[in-house]
């Protein structure tokens, strides 16, 4: 019996393809992975990601050619359970965690993953951001209850890493449809200024500078300082800030910034970092929507995998990553979103144009979960 499959080229959107392949059961073949590059083939962090996929699934077949430029991935069934994974420090844990967030509700057993590696870096959404934005988002899709938790045990900054994150998630058979069309108004801003292996004073300096900008809009701002010491501080020094704005309707928009890794680039001033991060948050607010730009694809995926009902979601402008994700969703699930632009009136002063995404769920049901 020949199952269906898809073929892609290049290593971009690598995670999307594997995740969607796993969920849809279609095999995927990725060719020409960095075939013209100086260092061709899959890189260490991608190999590490494949290993993680192998750990959480059961019966997955992975074939990689000798140079690593061709990958064949035949998905198995999502198994879950206790997983420990040493994430490659080239990418932060967020890289791996984003995929886990997408897959975790559809496992056979509730996932309890311990990921070790870099918790915060400049490329990927950090663990702090995912904790304050993705977890509430999942709750709005009916994935809640006891087990849903993301806990930062240790922090680790690039290049050394050494952080540790615990992610637990309960399993669901079906996902609820949502109608998130009204983001509400931002009522409070929270944040975490963290610093490891540097002076604890740096965190306070970040907080002050960030507040100075955000105070123009809202008084309810609280930025926690998180200074980790000793064994919990990882292997490399660094600091950063993750901000989140909560709206009256329980929507979260986030922004974050981390310092340059040790030995790369010029050292950053904490004040600059705080200011820039606050501005990033304002940018995010300008974009608006019910889900911030990093979680767009997660929300869209859950909408796709919902029951056969209409889901609606208001987003800011679609990020390139999300746009590609939408194409991939169409490839794997044959689901297209109705995309409507909601123009803002000139005098409304509520940021840029919003996009209303509407789709009919695929009627996906968790096939791994045991019937009791």
């Amino acid at each position: 019996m020949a199952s269906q499959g898809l073929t892609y080229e290049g290593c971009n959107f690598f995670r999307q393809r594997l995740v969607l392949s796993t969920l849809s059961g279609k095999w995927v073949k990725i060719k020409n992975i960095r075939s013209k590059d100086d260092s061709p083939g899959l890189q260490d962090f991608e190999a590490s990601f494949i290993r993680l996929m192998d750990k959480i699934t059961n019966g997955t077949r992975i074939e990689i050619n000798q140079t690593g430029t061709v990958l064949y991935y035949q998905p198995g069934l999502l198994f879950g359970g206790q997983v420990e994974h040493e994430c490659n420090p080239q990418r932060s844990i967020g890289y791996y965690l984003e995929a886990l967030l997408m897959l975790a509700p559809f496992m056979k057993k509730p996932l309890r993953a311990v990921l070790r590696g870099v918790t915060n870096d400049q490329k990927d959404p950090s663990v702090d951001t995912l904790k304050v934005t993705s977890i509430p988002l999942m709750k709005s899709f009916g994935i809640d209850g006891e087990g849903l938790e993301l806990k930062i045990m240790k922090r680790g900054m690039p290049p050394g890493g050494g952080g540790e994150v615990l992610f637990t998630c309960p399993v669901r058979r079906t996902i609820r449809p949502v109608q998130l069309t009204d983001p509400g108004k931002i009522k409070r801003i929270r944040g975490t200024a963290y610093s490891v292996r540097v002076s604890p004073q740096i965190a306070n300096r970040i907080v002050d500078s960030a507040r100075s900008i955000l105070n123009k809009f809202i008084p309810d701002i609280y930025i926690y300082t998180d200074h980790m010491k000793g064994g919990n501080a990882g292997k490399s020094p660094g600091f950063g800030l993750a901000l989140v704005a909560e709206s009256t309707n329980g929507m979260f928009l986030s922004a974050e910034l981390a310092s340059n890794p040790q030995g790369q680039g010029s050292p950053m001033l904490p004040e600059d970092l705080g200011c820039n991060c606050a501005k990033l948050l304002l940018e995010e607010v300008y974009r608006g929507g019910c889900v911030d730009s990093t979680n767009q694809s997660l929300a869209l995926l859950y909408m796709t995998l919902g029951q056969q009902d209409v889901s609606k979601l208001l987003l800011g402008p679609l990020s390139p990553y999300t746009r590609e994700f939408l194409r991939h969703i169409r490839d794997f699930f044959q689901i297209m979103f109705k995309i409507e632009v909601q123009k803002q009136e000139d005098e409304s002063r509520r940021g840029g144009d919003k996009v209303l995404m509407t789709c009919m769920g695929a009627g996906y049901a968790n096939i791994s979960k045991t019937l009791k």
Partner: protein
Amino acid sequence: MEAKEQKRHQRKQSGPKAERKKSRKQRAPGAEPDEDERRRNPRAFAVQSAVRMAKTFHRAQDLKTKKHHIPLVDRTPLEPPPVVVVVVGPPRVGKSTIIRCLIKNFTRQKLGDICGPVTIVSGKKRRLTFIECGNDINTMIDLAKVADLVLMLIDASFGFEMETFEFLNILQVHGFPRIMGVLTHLDSFKNNKTLRKTKKRLKHRFWTEVYQGAKLFYLSGMVHGEYQAQEVKNLGRFISVMKFRPLVWQTSHPYVVADRMEDLTDPETLRVDPKCDRTVSLYGYLRGTYLKNKGQVHIPGVGDFAVADVSFLPDPCPLPEEQKKRALNQKERLLYAPMAGVGGVVYDKDAVYIDLVSSHVDQPQMRPTAELVQSLIGTHATLDAKLAASKVSLFSGAAAMTPGEQQAPLENRVWDPVTQRERRKAVFSDDEEEGDGDESYEGDEEGQSEQGDDEEGLQGGDEEEKSSGARESKVGEARRGQDEEEKAPRVKRQRLERVEAKPPVEMPAFADSEDDLEMSGDDGEQSEEDEREGAEGGTADSGHCSEEEVDDDDEDEAEDDNEEKQDGKEEEDDEEDDDYDDDEDSDMETEVTAPVNISKPVKAKVSVLSEEAEEDDGDAGELGNESTGALRWKEGLAQKASEAFLRQQQAAPNLRKLVYGSVIEEQNSPSDEDADEIGGLFRVSRPEKSRSRRVDAMDCSRFVPDSPHDWDQEEVLNSIRDCFVTGKWEESKDAATLLKEDEELYGDFEDLETGEVHHGKPAKEEDSEEEVMVKEDAEEEQKKKRLEKKRRLKERFDSEYDDGDATYFDDLKEEMQKQAELNRAEFENIDDEARVQYEGFRPGMYIRMEIPGLPCEFVNNFDPHYPIILGGLGASEGNVAVSPLQGLKKHRWHQRILKTRDPLILSLGWRRFQSIPLYHIEDHNGRHRLLKYTPQHMHCGATIWGPITPQGTGFLAVQSVSGTQAGFRIAATGVILDLDKSVTIVKKLKLIGYPYKIFKNTAFIKGMFNTMLEVAKFEGASVRTVSGIRGQIKKALRTPSGAYRATFEDRILMSDIVLLRSWCPVSVPQLYNPVTSLLQPVGQKDSWSGMRTLGQLKRDLGLRNKPNQDSLYKPVVRTKRHFNPLHIPKQLQKALPFKSKPKQDQKKGKTPRHLQRPAVIREPHERKVAALLTALSTVHNYKTKKAKAEQHAKHKEFLKQKEREEMEKLKRQKEARKKMYRIMGQKEKKRERSSLKGSSKDD
């Protein structure tokens, strides 16, 4: 049915009933009785026990909650697909007859042979699809999965047959649709009492199988080969008002019961290789749920296939337009059965098919369509060469499907004489004992006679028709011929001719559809729009990254190019068409005009048609009134579509194209990739910047703005002011308005403590009094508004307050309701073209599925009597995994238990396939232990290598699908509980070793393992000896290899055997063999046989197992056991007490001769004396014995007498005592009375 004139109810004027009523009436005006009782006797209704009250309350609540079902979102389509009515029953029970009767009842049309699904319009809101289910178990399984209603026909003269019960079981497994039983052959009962009894017996048996009170219809007798009209009418009425339950599998999977099949394979490839894989398009109503394009389907009996294309067609059998009237008119009573040759002209995406009524030409009146085609057929032979040359296939496969070829093999199968078939009667112990053989014989006889009757009836019917021929519609007349023909070939293949091969007016691909429509719109608008797009790309879309803008521009250009190209192409096509049409026309003129007169108008028609087509094409290019081919048949739809499109266009400025359109561009790009070649051999490999940036870029979900705003400027800051709670709120949500609303509502209140009354706004009213006079209108309006608002608020308040007991359940229900409304409303206004892209094809649509790569046997051996079902597969349902089927149970009617590793045919999901199951049972510690055979009366698990199917899906297993077998065919049933790719089944493995050296509790064991490594793996494992001494493996020994040291709880013996009990995992055999019954030759569809079981193989090959010599039973030879004498040491002997001392004395031997006493021999006299003495003693003995007996009897008599006397004495005494007591009692009474008197006197 007219309401019968019923006798009026006569009220009773006298008697107890009238009295009772009168008294009740009199009492009524006072107060309601129950309330009265409560007031009159409040204690009776007081709380007696708090515990009991709590209990009653609990019970009431429990009962209430029990009634609840989990609320589901109502996903039934607005225009539902026809209801699938499956007619089941053993052969010769009257299935076809009942379908024919029902069709006649609903549509007033006669259908000869029921061939494939027949769809009719039965009412204003209901359509029915009738399918006849043959006796083949494959068909039964397939149809059970798609049936909404099952008409279960039972031959009352014979009773239930095994097939009926098998089918009921199949239904139970695959969801239980509605079932209606129909008893036929009731006219064969001569005796009224037996008829009644049989009816009752069958009804009760039917009820036990389905549910108590299940509907069973009785069709009493035949009139002219048809059932009685009134009874059929009643049955039809029941069918048309029936409600259906949603079945889980059906509601979660899209499926199509194909009612039309066309082979689209290129005739040239067909000619070159007649056995090539075929591309086939299948048509039918979509049922179940939304179907996504390009999905995977399973065709039961063929296999899994990827769908190349799905498109929707205009409904061939539409429901009547909305009209306010009660019944359907004749025009709306449609009948659609292309496989049976009914349906007239059928349209396809790119062709029109015209149904040829039948091959007989000498019909008095011909339908216009038939005429047309007849004339075309006349031209067929001469056109052949030209057609071949011009590469246009006018008649695809016309020559291949001559009726004679098709009918020959079918004939044999259908006309199986009744007597040859084994009827498998189901006999139950609770059935009345009847002569089994007799009855079957009787039945056979009846069958024969019936056959005769049938034929007679048919003829009679024909005659009747002839007499009333004038009334009959044309179609009816057309059918009649078939009826006559029916005796010879019951099965007839429809003959469809492909008349026109118009250039496909394609359903445009999605991204292009806009373009087409745009193009169809005015050019000016187009350019405007382009400009607008450009402007937006510059300003409004600042959120999107710049790269996309470039893309967009490129895309537009590309699109323009495409459009131009398309235009060009279309023009070319048109020209070609013209040529072609002209050619054809001229040809036809030359050919047709001379011989036949009728053909003139026909020709004209054809040409008109083609002209129309041209015009249409032209229109599509120029005016764009009608844009797609599909729209032509639905009037007004084009306009609707264009309106909807315009609306959409205004709303979404091509963001959709940005997301979904660029993929197409990307696919195109590699083709026009410029290749730098050096010397035609080598190519310069240089990293392409643009592509590699996209393809090999960093995979990151963060969206860093390319051109961030300058957040130091005030106006930029101001642009997001209102996103915060501190900013300005919308009018409706503003705090001030909300407060005011509250004030309006709750303004008036009374302080209960002080008794003060506060009024909301007295001042305002006073002020406004003057104004009221001035501006009455405004005030009136205001008032209305306020009232409206108040009403709304009050409603909300009421709903919140009064429904204090609004439970979680109610909330859930409301939520579902809302979701259902949203689902309906969301895509309602979009035209179907776009809508199918968003939500897939809706159930209820008539769709066409193009499936490539079907095996040629599917087309060659096509038999419309076997249903073709296209079952959509969900995500990852196309994959194979090991799936443990928990809760499998051998069916209790199946006679044999099932053996592990014997192939079994399972029906699971849509599929029927053969696989090799492993049976297992779960031990108390969660271990799945392999079983060799299924338990007889218990559930067990089974694990198979099979397709992924969602949990909770039922399945059934049969051992073979071929032919008929004795006994109940369904071997096992169960449900899927779990899917897994790793197997957890283990079987017990005992490793045996022998001690070769024994110390105290330690022993060296050999023979269990082969190497030290193996031992190392088992270090610490527990072992035991056969005698039950437990031990543990300690360490491996160097020599001999595989030996180890083990310790035991006691010293073991050299003769002991050491066992290591272990569990070894079992791998599941990877067999997945779909049952390809539809590919079998016609007439042999029920003879599919797959892998044989081991037993069958051995039987077939005549092999016998050579048993292990050691396992054979041999006579038991027991050696005599020899015990050594007990030796007690002398010292011990000495110390023992005498009693315990071993006795030295030997056994007493024979007495020595000299000690033996001599025998005494009597003298003759002595002998005489002895004899006399003996005689005397005998006499004496006798005498004493006699005396003793006498004495005994006498004593008995004496005892009896004594007892009698005793009794009398007792009686006497009793009497005396009684007398005495009476006297005493009287005395006592007297005394009492006197004392009472005395006391009363005292008082």
